[in-house]
């Protein structure tokens, strides 16, 4: 699967798409593929404040529990409720309907230090 070019990536394999002061966050195709069948996603509470790089939830596959980090900080304004009943959406459409949560960003320049699609592709090919 090609890396979408209009999003930024973290080294922890999350992606973030910024639109004005709103950020949508999910995990990458590489991440879902490494995890295997995803059976549960625990997301941050709507209204909560999260710090850039903080652990804000978990993603569980059949075999493993992994931390979910947020690549940017802000206030959680929405979580993907579909994932509660169908966590495998993350496997099927990691960059689409498998998104995880949305934030109202704290300030600007939050994507500094995050990777471009090309840089992320290089990271995951190592």
């Amino acid at each position, binding site marked *: 699967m090609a890396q979408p070019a209009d999003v930024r990536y973290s080294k922890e394999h999350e992606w973030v798409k910024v639109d004005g002061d709103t950020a949508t966050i999910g995990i990458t195709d590489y991440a879902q593929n490494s995890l*295997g*069948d995803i*059976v*549960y996603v*625990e997301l941050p509470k709507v209204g909560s404040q999260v710090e850039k790089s903080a652990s804000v939830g*978990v993603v*569980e596959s*059949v*075999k493993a*529990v992994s931390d979910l980090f947020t690549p940017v900080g802000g206030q959680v304004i929405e979580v993907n409720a579909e994932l*509660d009943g169908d*966590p495998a959406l993350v496997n099927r459409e990691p960059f689409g309907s498998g998104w995880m949560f949305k934030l109202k960003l704290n300030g600007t320049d939050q994507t500094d230090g995050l990777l471009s699609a090309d840089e992320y592709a290089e990271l995951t090919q190592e």
Partner: protein
Amino acid sequence: MTTQERMAKRTPLHEQHVRLGARMIPFGGFDMPVQYSSILKEHEAVRRRAGLFDLSHMGQFILTGENVPAWADELTSNAVGTMKLGQARYNIFTNERGGALDDVIFYRPADRWLLVVNASNADKMWTHLNAHAANAGVTLTSLHGRNALIAIQGPKSVQMLSPHTGVDVDSLKYYFCAEGHVYGKRAVIARTGYTGEDGFEIFLDGADAAHVWDQLLADNEGGGLIPAGLGARDVLRLEAGMPLYGHELTEEITPVQAGLMFAVKLSKPSFVGKPALEAQKAADDYARIVGIVMDGRAPAREGYSVFLGDRRVGEIRSGSIAPSLQNKHIATALVEKEAAAPGTPVVVHIRGTAYGAQVVPLPFYKRSQ
């Protein structure tokens, strides 16, 4: 790279796994496939059609000598001496406390006994057997790492295997074995498994394994046979309520606690640990293995605490999603007697939050026949 990964041995089917794109993990000293396509897809194939497993990491020991039955009866909780020719039987090697050194299967093809032990316990068991074999009139031979073991498991196993063997696998009874050939290669075929489905385990010389594996997959691709890894195997066995050594059964968790009384013959005159097991059974105050179904969608995992009200009564020993139970999350737990009755509402603590669950009878899944 860890020492374990560096030291991992390869089964005779290693090349096959790599070619099939398996994700490999170190397990029991071997580099083993945990999944090929997806654990859930492989699980589904075994429940509906069939899956093919490489179990060559398991320890295979040959026991010969007239004294084998009496000797083995002294070291294990189940009966060996009453096994008929061609029979297979689940058994447990016990310690003085009644704990399990390993859970195993004895097979009795003509003129010898085949003992299959867990990969993780193979070295320990080889040492244990040898320590007791001196002057016992028993000869031990290890085929561990040399022989192969391929399992075909699922409702289509008979129709997929029978055209390629002279053994009448359709008539072979559950927990019996026969010697013959598969694709022209000498084999012991046993109607045993660890998935809760019908199926066969095929013991082969390591050199013959790749041929049989490749042929079975090629001839049954249309029927839906796919390779299945250790990940699917663990989900399948847990749904079927089968213990996994190190989880439901350990040197501390006895077969009485694990609910394996069918494999504990207290009527035998003696065996290692019998007095301890007798006393434990009679006292009936021991912590025991139960089935747990989570109310919600959060998975229970090994080590999580189980509470009855606000009292901690035990811990989760295995946990998984259960595709055969509408994707509910199931688990086994070792809990105090007061919390063990089916229907008991309990609470599982997951990352500091309490989640409701219920104690249920084992197994979770039983195939319809």
